[in-house]
């Protein structure tokens, strides 16, 4: 497991021994989803009231008022519960914005969790329906959890995370073996550098590569190409000779990465 980073990617280890990464959604997007849900609910209520008041002429105004009160109650408390406990794990508003509610372990939430997180919404909405408490809690927790999320043990994630743009610079012809053993994290950083290098200007690439001068043994453009060559060696050559067991990664076995 890598060290805690300042990132919205949350690593979760499954019973199957693999680590999955969930991208947690921030408060702004969730506020948008909430606003959409409000609009949808108001729309439904308005349409239903018009239809019911026409019906009321036939079956009596009081019956209709009762149905409306009941509908209002269900919309207020159970609209998010039923949708989130359902198969998609999201209210219509969240679905439109590509969000989903899951347990902190990544599995779908239970009915009970949907109840807890949505009944406590009333507290998150305080003071005066500004969502001040919910926002404060979101900003104070690593996984953007409002109070209801904390109590229910849930997080809101992107259902389909937008892929990180990868623009690798053209690979160098000759791979260069790593001169020293690197830790798994260091090697990963090297590979990421290569994968993202195409996104940066040459000057920025050199600036970053200069941080690893100890490894590349050169500054500026030669340093960059040397790092690229090493990354190329790591990705394409290393395992041709047999999996793992090199470069300070002895403790890593493919199935249980720890």
């Amino acid at each position, binding site marked *: 497991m890598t060290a805690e980073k300042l990132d919205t990617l949350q690593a979760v280890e499954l019973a*199957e021994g693999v680590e*999955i990464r969930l991208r947690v959604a921030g408060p702004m997007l969730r506020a948008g989803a909430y606003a959409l849900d409000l609009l949808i609910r108001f729309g439904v209520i308005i349409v239903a009231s018009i239809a019911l008041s026409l019906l009321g002429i036939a079956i009596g105004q009081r*019956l209709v008022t009762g149905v409306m009160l009941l509908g209002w109650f269900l919309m207020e408390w159970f609209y998010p519960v039923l949708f989130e406990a359902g198969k998609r794990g999201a209210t219509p508003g969240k679905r439109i914005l590509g969000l989903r509610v899951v347990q902190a372990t990544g599995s779908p939430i239970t009915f009970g969790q949907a*109840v807890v997180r949505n009944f406590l919404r009333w507290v998150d909405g305080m003071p005066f329906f500004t969502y001040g408490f919910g926002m404060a809690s979101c900003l104070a927790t690593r996984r953007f959890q409002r*109070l209801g999320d904390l*109590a*229910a043990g849930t997080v809101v994630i992107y259902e389909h995370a937008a892929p990180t743009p*990868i623009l690798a610079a053209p690979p160098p012809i000759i791979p260069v073996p790593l001169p020293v053993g690197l830790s798994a994290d260091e090697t990963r950083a090297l590979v990421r550098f290569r994968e993202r290098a195409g996104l940066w200007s040459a000057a920025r690439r050199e600036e970053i590569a200069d941080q690893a001068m100890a490894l590349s043994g050169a500054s500026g453009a030669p340093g960059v190409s040397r790092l690229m060559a090493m990354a190329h060696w790591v990705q394409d050559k290393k395992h041709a000779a047999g999996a*793992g067991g090199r470069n300070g990664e002895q403790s890593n076995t*493919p199935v249980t990465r720890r």
Partner: protein
Amino acid sequence: MTVGDFEDKNKQRWEEYQRLVDGMEKGKPGPEAGQLPRRFRELCVDLSLAEFRMYGERLTERLNAQVIRGYEMLYQKRRASWEKLAEFVAVRFPQTVRREWRLFWLCNAVFWLPFFAVMLSASYEIQWVQSILGADGMASMDQMYGGKEDQIAHLREEYGSNFMMFCHYIRNNVGIDFRTFAGGMAAGLGTLFFLLFNGIYMGAAAGYVNHAGNPESFWTFVSGHAPYELLGMVVAGMAGMRLGLALLHPGRLPRVRALAEAAKQALPLILGAALLTTLAAVVEGFWSAQLLPSGLKYGVGIAGWVLVTAYFTLAGRRVGHAP
């Protein structure tokens, strides 16, 4: 093995897996859906390998997304069923209330002590009650329970009134239950406020009618639904206090963990409270305002108290403890 080799070698298995998951997501699992767990585990190993061999983010992100999809399908929770609801009502809910007996008596005390104190204060000094109810409150009590004739029943004469009031009670009273529960997040203060406020206000209403209205029309009206409604409120208070106490006294757990554990324990309480209050709304909507002999209505009220007492003390005793 390069990235390309790895992808070529496993392509067929990944496509197979994707077909299985697609079918599951559409709710139409094919005949070979039973293979999903095995395919899922294989994919997990592939993801681990890809991460370990640093095949790059393009591949690992793709596999990651596929693993998440399968995980969500495999670890779906069982849907709610009538059987589960019956088991909840017959066993789990009364067991949870018995297990939380301390909170039960605490919340009862917070509600009933002010209730009786305020109600009885009316016979010594009516001004307390008057200032609690205010002019509007007193006017509406006069309107409902003021005179000798059966005003409540007259208010319900129009067709559909009973149903409308039933819906009103659901929305209002169950909503109060849920807010009482949520108020527990303020270290229990919100919950205590709701219980105290309701105790004082209802006590004032009862005291005022005893003093200045027609007590019989009041007590015959409330006796039928009082057992379920008031206990529903108390149980909602227990759920809120469970949350509040977890924040105040987390014990050996970190506060957030303690809160999550408490929420699990409070869940049957708040759901049960909602059921009790719904039952109360049925009684209040369709029974309480009927024009029937007072003796019968008091009898039903007493039977209700006996029933809930028996329910909370006896139901689910023979079955093992709730998990």
